[in-house]
């Protein structure tokens, strides 16, 4: 089977410091993969390179067999590779409904008219944000902001979700809700995900395979 995502020999340096050193990984369609590592091991840099926010210094990335190494973040999103950020950056002047509408406007194929409105409502309901749909994004709680990040990622009907510390600094209830959403996206939507976390227990309970990143290299890998 063709890998959904195949990254080969990814290297990245900042000011002479080697942050990623020949990382090679692949993710199959629908697979659930965890990425674990100490602070400074290069987890977020790897997420940035895989999602198109940063260009790698060396190596190549293929998504569904297509070479995407130099494609920017927005183009990869439109292909079905969505990511969330460790620290959400909400739109200050937009409501929750509008934020999802923006993401849906970029989705391919692009829903129009009534289909679009239904699409927004469906995403908001699935993310548990329907009752907050007219609330400005900037006044959401941390838990709701993470849900909105997730809702935004769902709008492109993702084939791969890259989730950078999606569950950090959340209450137990918020974490449970978001976990249910993630499992549903994987089971019902068929989305594979790469979940980056400091929480080994969480990764063990949500991922079939865990990659250990140390000093910019995949040091080992474990199947749960």
């Amino acid at each position, binding site marked *: 089977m063709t890998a959904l995502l195949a990254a080969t020999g990814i290297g990245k340096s900042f000011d002479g410091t080697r942050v990623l050193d020949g990382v090679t990984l692949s993710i199959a369609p629908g697979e659930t993969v965890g990425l674990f590592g100490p602070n400074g091991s290069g987890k977020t840099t790897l997420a940035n390179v895989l999602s198109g926010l940063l260009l790698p210094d060396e190596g190549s990335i293929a998504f569904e067999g297509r070479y995407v190494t130099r494609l*920017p973040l*927005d183009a990869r*999103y439109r292909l079905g590779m969505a990511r969330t950020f460790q620290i959400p950056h*909400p*739109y*200050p*002047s937009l409501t929750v409904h509008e934020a999802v509408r923006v993401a849906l406007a970029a989705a391919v194929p692009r829903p129009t008219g009534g289909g679009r409105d239904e699409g927004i409502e469906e995403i908001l309901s699935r993310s548990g944000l329907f*009752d907050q749909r*007219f609330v400005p994004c900037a006044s959401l709680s941390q838990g709701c902001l993470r849900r909105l990040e997730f809702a935004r990622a769902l*709008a492109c009907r993702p084939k791969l979700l890259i989730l950078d510390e999606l569950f950090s600094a959340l209450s137990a209830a918020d974490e449970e809700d978001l976990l249910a959403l993630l499992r549903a996206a994987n089971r019902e939507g068929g989305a594979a995900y790469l979940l980056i976390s400091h929480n080994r227990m969480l990764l063990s309970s949500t991922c079939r395979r865990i990659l250990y990143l140390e000093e910019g290299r995949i040091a080992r890998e474990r199947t749960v």
Partner: protein
Amino acid sequence: MIRPAPLSSGWATQIRGGWLAAGIGLLLLFPLSYPDAYLLDVLTTGFLLAAFAASWDVVGGIAGQVTLGHALPFGAATYACALLTRLAGWPFPLAAAAAVLLATAAGAGVGQLASPLSGPFVAVLTLALAEAAHEIAAGHAFLSGPGGYAWGGEGGIPVVLPWGDAPPIASYYAALAFLCLSTWGILRFSRSESGLVLRAVAGSPLTAQASGVPIGRFRRLAFIVGSAFAGAAGAGYAAHVGRATAGDLSLELSFQAATFAAVGGRGTVVGPVVAALALHALFQGLSLPPAARVLLYAGTLLVTLRFFPGGVAGTAREVAARLRSRDRNRGGRRRRGGEAPPGGSA
């Protein structure tokens, strides 16, 4: 569960619409009070500057790309009108259409250069481009054929108008109609899906990009649309003043538009229009020399940014939200008081 009301509720829209209709009605009736030609001229120029300020708001407000060179498409249009009618002999309507196209092309060019940039870099780039055009316009002379006149330089180039000197009242109503139409057009754009995406790009480019938005393309779109409207305002200005001068490309003009938008409320479209009308009329009434006017604009901009960063419209919206929240809290306290057990305070 009680669902929160939409931010822009029906009654608020009706009140805003009512104020706007009343304002337009007053402006329509104003010439019936037999004002002198000078006052009509001040207001006519004010309408065109207000349309220009609204066009700045597309780029600097809605898209958040604060430009200090918005005079470039405006001046390009006034010069195109003058050059095409005076030197090429084109009829004014055709020259005006070409001028709008030229302004749009200028906007596309500026947008292409500015779209990868943000913040002060956009301001510096646009300022440099407009100042370069201003210097060229101030220093260059155009010859109108063998043995003809040399036009240009500080004196500018006259525009050939088919109607000669239009009566002030006709110019007044034409400029008012143009202001209403262009404001309506910009508001429509602002409320379209492209406008929504631009507000997202202005608010958080990173989140917008992670939502699949090609932010460079949308920033270019903002420059193109804003410049098209600025070009239309420039063509109108050329028709009203009858001359294109280097002042049409000046920093003062760009600065004016930015000040009007900051005072009125960036991104609100109507706010900059109202601020432009009020400030232009006020500053003209004070009969200040140009240098003092620039200082006054700078002072107004500083005071606004320091004390009312959202401008008049933004501050009004904030106060209204605070009042609504206070009313809700009072209502909540009253309800809780009513639910207290009887005799509890005896």
